[in-house]
C-alpha cells in the first residue's frame, strides 16, 4: 500500500479525520522532541512542548491550505511554541541556564574507543549548548531529515543562499567552541 503523504494526511485531519494525526505524530513526534530537547535539555518540558505543537495543529487545522510542505508548517508552529515558552519563562524569571547541567562521568567499563566516541558526542552536545539560540536552532533544523534549506528559508523569511551562509557561520562557531572544549578536556 502506498504511503500517504504528509499533505494528504493533514488534509484528512483538516476534514475532521482526527485519527490521521496519529500517523503524523509517529512521523514527526521524535524529530520535534529532539529539536526541543537539544534546546531545553529537559525531557518532561520537551514532551510538553511537542504536545503543545500537536494541540496547535488541531487548533489551527482549518488554516492549513496544503499548498506548501507540511513539515514547514509544522516547524513554523513548533518555533512559535518555543518562542511562547521562552517568553513565558523569561517573564516568570525562570533560569534556563544550560551550563548548570551536570557533566556525566565517563563509564570506565566500556572499551576505550567507544568511550572516546562517547566523550566526543558529549563535547559536541556541550558545544551546541554554548551557541546562541538562533544559531543552535538553525543547525538543528538543518540536521532534521526532510527539512531542506528551502524550507528553512521559508520559515525565516529569507533566501536559500542566505540560510546556507547563516548555517555555515553557525558551523564555524560550533567548531570554535568544540575545539576549545576539546583542548580543555585534554588539559584536564
Amino acid at each position, binding site marked *: 500500500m502506498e504511503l500517504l503523504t504528509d499533505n494528504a494526511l493533514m488534509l484528512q485531519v483538516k476534514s*475532521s479525520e*482526527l*485519527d490521521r*494525526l*496519529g500517523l503524523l*505524530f509517529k512521523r514527526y*513526534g*521524535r*524529530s520535534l*522532541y*529532539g529539536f526541543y*530537547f*537539544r534546546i531545553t535539555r529537559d*525531557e518532561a518540558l*520537551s*514532551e510538553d512542548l*511537542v*504536545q503543545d505543537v*500537536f*494541540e496547535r495543529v*488541531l487548533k489551527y487545522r482549518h488554516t492549513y491550505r496544503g499548498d506548501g510542505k507540511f513539515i514547514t508548517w509544522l516547524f513554523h508552529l513548533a518555533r512559535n511554541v518555543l518562542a511562547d515558552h521562552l517568553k513565558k519563562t523569561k517573564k516568570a524569571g525562570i533560569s534556563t541556564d544550560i551550563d548548570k547541567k551536570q557533566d556525566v562521568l565517563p563509564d570506565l567499563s566500556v572499551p576505550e574507543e567507544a568511550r572516546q566516541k562517547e566523550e*566526543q*558526542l558529549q*563535547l*559536541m*552536545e556541550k558545544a*551546541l549548548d554554548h551557541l546562541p539560540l538562533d544559531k543552535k536552532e538553525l*543547525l538543528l533544523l538543518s*540536521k532534521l531529515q526532510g527539512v531542506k534549506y528551502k524550507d528553512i528559508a521559508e520559515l525565516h523569511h529569507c533566501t536559500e*543562499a542566505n540560510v*546556507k*551562509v547563516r*548555517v*555555515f*557561520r553557525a*558551523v*564555524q562557531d*560550533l*567548531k570554535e567552541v*568544540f*575545539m576549545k572544549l576539546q583542548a580543555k578536556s585534554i588539559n584536564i
Partner: protein
Amino acid sequence: MNDERHQEMLLDYLQGNLDEAQLQEFQTLVESGQIREEELQTLQATYAAFDQLPAPEPGPGMEAKFRHMLAAAHKEQAGLDKPQYTWGGLWEHLQALLSPLKVAYTLIVFGLGFLVAWLAFVPGQQQYDTDVQVLAAELGQVKQMLFTTLIEQPAAVDRLKAVNISRELPEADEKVIDALFHSLNQDPNVNVRLAAIEALKKHTAKPEVREQLILSINGQESPMVQLALADLMQTLQEKNAVPQLRQLLQDKNTNEMVRDRIQESINILI
C-alpha cells in the same frame, strides 16, 4: 573564506551535496589556498561529530499524552457535530417550508396524521352520542329560529320555506303549531295553506291539532284547501269533522267538484 559563495560551497561539501563539477572547483579553491586545508579539516571533524549526534529518544509517556489529547479532541468534535439550533437556521427551514408545494404536502401529511389520531383515539360511543344529541338539539333550535323568522316574511316563497322547515323539526312546540295554524287560516297564498296542511299532518296524533283542523274547514275559501282538509279528515277517520263538512256542503259558494268529494268523504266517515 569570507566570500559567501565559498561559504555556501563549503557547507555543501561538508554535507556531501556537491556534484562533480562543483567538487573540482572546490578542490581548485583548496589547492590555491583560497580555502585553507587546516580549517577545512577541523570543520569536517566538527561537522562529522555534529552529524553523528544521535536523536534524543522521548519517553513512552509522550505518545500516551498525545493519545489522551487526541481522545479529548475526538470527544470535543463529537459535541460540536450535534446540530446547532439558531434563529437563522430556523428561518431557513421556514423559508424552505413556505414553498406552495411543500405547504400542500405538509397539509396533507398533517391531515392524514389528524385522521389517524382521530381513528386511534375516537372518544367513547357514549360521548359520541351525547355530542350528536347536543348537535341535533342545536340544529333544531336553529331551524326553529329560521322558521319563526321566515313565517313572518311578506314573500310567499319564504313562508313556504318556513312551513317546509317546520316539517323537519323533530318536536314542534306550541309556537310552531300555532304558527302553522295561523298560516293555514290566515295566509293569503293557497300554496302556503296547502303546505301548512301537509306540515300539520305530522302532528295529527295530538287531539288539539285534529280539533283545530276540523275548525279550520269552514274558514277556508279555496277549493284546493277544502279538498285537502276533507281528504285529511277521511285519512284520519275523524268523525267529529262530519258536521263541519256538512256545513261546507250546504254552503252555496262551495265548488261543485268539492261538494262531490266532501259528500264522498262524509259517506266514508259515517
